[in-house]
């Protein structure tokens, strides 16, 4: 296990180094000069030059990169051009929206997809199966931003039950905060829910055809026990793999839904930072998200070992 952890940490370091290099180069190759975007249409050339200098953009790219990595290693991701605040502080404050949103969406996705997948698999090629699969087909087909708009139209414009967007902060109360995140979480989780339900169904169907399931049934084991203790547990490996990947996708999907629901989260921060060419923020966020995804992947690997005792790392 120890060797495994060391290997994992080393892999994390290499991944992050690679990501940092990639994002650094990409944001600099992007056409569009941050100084121009900051100053707008009425800027004079000498004010542009001054701003470029203040941002350190007049330095050669390798020098800029070395400086950035050096600071990042000391935990300093730089300062936002737009907000004039430390990037780390910005990310943390936006995380108070995006993290609960992603977790809520993931919770919705798992809580809805696995039971539905099981339901469909046990009613293979019967109406229950077809209904569930039609439902999930719909989920795959409807883009998240559109689902978001439809939910807003129904629940806030027509019925007036929920606010159409915005987030007043956790200071306004836990329930108030959760309510603001509910519609976006459903819209965000919809696509992933549909994918996961289909995965669960086919994984379970596969296992249900196995000989040992037949044996268990022949022995007279109760169907519930067969399904949940024998079949589902063995079907969980592909399900967990897919769910792990989906967590990362949920994080990415939040970029669009945070704009639809105008939530002050990490996604909108990223979008705004890209169009404003707020390079330190773009770099910081990408690095941070890459870090999160690597950690989730590691967690999934460890989960494999728990689910299937035959899998051992060493």
């Amino acid at each position, binding site marked *: 296990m120890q060797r495994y952890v060391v290997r994992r940490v080393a892999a994390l370091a290499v991944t992050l180094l690679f990501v940092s290099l990639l994002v650094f180069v990409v944001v600099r190759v*992007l*056409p*569009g*000069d941050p100084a*121009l*975007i*900051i*100053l*707008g*249409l*009425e*800027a*004079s*050339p*000498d*004010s*542009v*030059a*001054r*701003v470029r200098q203040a941002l350190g953009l007049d330095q050669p790219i390798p020098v800029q990169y070395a400086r950035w990595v050096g600071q990042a290693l000391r935990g300093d991701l730089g300062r936002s051009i*737009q*907000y*004039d*605040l430390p990037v780390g502080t*910005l990310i943390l*404050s*936006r995380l108070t929206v995006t993290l609960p949103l992603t977790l809520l969406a993931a919770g919705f996705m798992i809580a809805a997809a696995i039971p539905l997948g099981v339901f469909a698999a046990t009613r293979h090629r019967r109406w229950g199966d077809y209904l569930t699969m039609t439902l999930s087909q719909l989920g795959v087909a409807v883009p998240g931003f559109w689902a978001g*708009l439809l939910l*807003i*139209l129904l629940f*806030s*414009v027509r019925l*007036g*039950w*929920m*606010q*159409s*967007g*915005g*987030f007043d*902060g956790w200071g306004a109360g836990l329930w*108030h905060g959760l*309510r603001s995140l*509910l519609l976006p979480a459903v819209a965000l989780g919809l696509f992933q829910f549909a994918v996961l339900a289909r995965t669960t169904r086919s994984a379970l169907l596969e296992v249900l055809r196995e000989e040992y399931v037949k044996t268990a049934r022949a022995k007279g084991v109760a169907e519930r026990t067969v399904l949940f203790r024998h079949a589902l547990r063995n079907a969980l490996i592909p399900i967990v793999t897919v769910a792990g990947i989906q967590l990362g996708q949920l994080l990415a999907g939040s970029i669009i839904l945070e*704009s*639809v*629901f*105008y*939530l*002050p*989260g990490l996604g*909108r*921060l990223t979008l*705004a930072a890209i*169009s*404003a*060419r707020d390079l330190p923020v773009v770099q910081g966020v990408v690095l941070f998200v890459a870090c999160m995804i690597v950690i989730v992947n590691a967690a999934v690997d460890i989960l494999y070992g728990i689910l299937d005792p035959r899998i051992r790392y060493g």
Partner: protein
Amino acid sequence: MTRLRLLTVAVLLAALIAVPAAAPAQTPGSLVIQVPTEPPGLDLTSNPSSAIAAVVFDNVQEGLIKIDRHGKMVPWLAERWYTSDNKTYTFFLRRNVRFSNGREMKSADVKFALDRAVNPETKHPYRVQYDAIQDVIVKDDYTVTVALKKIDATFLYTLARQGSVIYPREAVDTLKSQPVGTGPFTVSEWVRGDRIVLLKNKDYWVKGLPKLDRVVYRFIPDPNSTLAAIKSGDIDVSAFGIGPESVDELKKDPRLQVIVGDTTNDVTLSMNNSKKPYSDKRVRLAITHAIDKEEVLKGAMFGYGKILGSNVDPTNPFFVDVSKRVGYDPAKAKKLLAEAGYPNGFDAVFKVAPQYYYTVRSAEVVSSQLAKVGIRATIQQIEWGQWLSQVFCLAPCQTPDYDMSIIGHAEAWDIGNFANPKYYFRWDSPAFQKLYADSQVTVDEKSRRALYVKMQEMLADEAPAVWLYMHPRLVIAKKGVTGMWKDQPAPVLDLSEVAWQK
């Protein structure tokens, strides 16, 4: 039994959700207003962004002179002024005007703000406009004299601009996050990425104003989300961002009012005058004659907005309608193209930024009109940042990389752009430059007007760019919101007189 349990949970959940939302509190004295862009800082003296002005200008900080809702310059922090030779101006300040930090505004603050604008170290975005200032002299606490190097006909207008607000010297370091001024409101809270909250300045020097106690600016970039927010009542006013396509539908909503007004935003088709074939006046005129502006306004803006009569916006006192000189005439356009050596037309590319939806829609209509005279124009949508560096082309860009583009020029009094050969039109006309330079040192209204008329006529005859239409001001507000400005003669969102009808 499991099913029963599931059902119970489902019913409970539904009930929880259905508890009516803490009814979008329409607290009297409080207003929630949507703006599409979050300001990049709140310092009017560091950045020309109109998103900053929408929050700070005239709401938090004010200048010596103000542009009122009719576009007229009115004495503001300066009660009156006096000049005998148009080179020395003496301003008499209003007494008992306090900054929101409690200190009284005095001449020394005016000197500090103007000196700082002139100083190149400050990085003031409009520094050029203060070039004429030679010296600022404090006569006494309420009298200050500005000596100019040369006559500058736009000097008083410069003092009414957003970059000329007066702020206390001791608060200069917090301009970017916590601007202090003499305005009707103070900045209470800025939740980055979400909202800015302004509170009433109880000691505001104009008695009875502001009428609101609290203003919340919400940043909602997406037009669909804005539409949903105004329809569900989560916001009280949408200031910018709802497109003309939604206006007719919103007008039918009995809970809402639609305010349609004028702006100084001239939507302009620009041509790269330094590039063939646009360097040929006949080609530029052909393009001008080929465009049916009426149809562009209908197709792109659902008829909202106004056809412009010249390259100067209609709120400008020197505006003259010169549109007859370049009317819609496709036959003439074809003839001009043939004369210029393009009897079969040519290929062209429109570079437009979809961030401003009207630019793409206008380009679509215009390119179909150009096709009728043989100019085959394709539309290339590029992101705003790229537009700024490829089309607008400031340093380090040397030569603009575009054929034609469309963008709104929101600045009032911006005819000088045509006198700048480095501007992205790249139109270099010494005759026009001379006219403009003369207009800058002519203070006699009649002679100055004559020069402006000449300039507008010349722009029609030379066609360095095509003026299309004035972008309308479209404000959507709940019924009961009063006091919003109808027109927008300056980049400002003045909320001092806004109130809820009782």
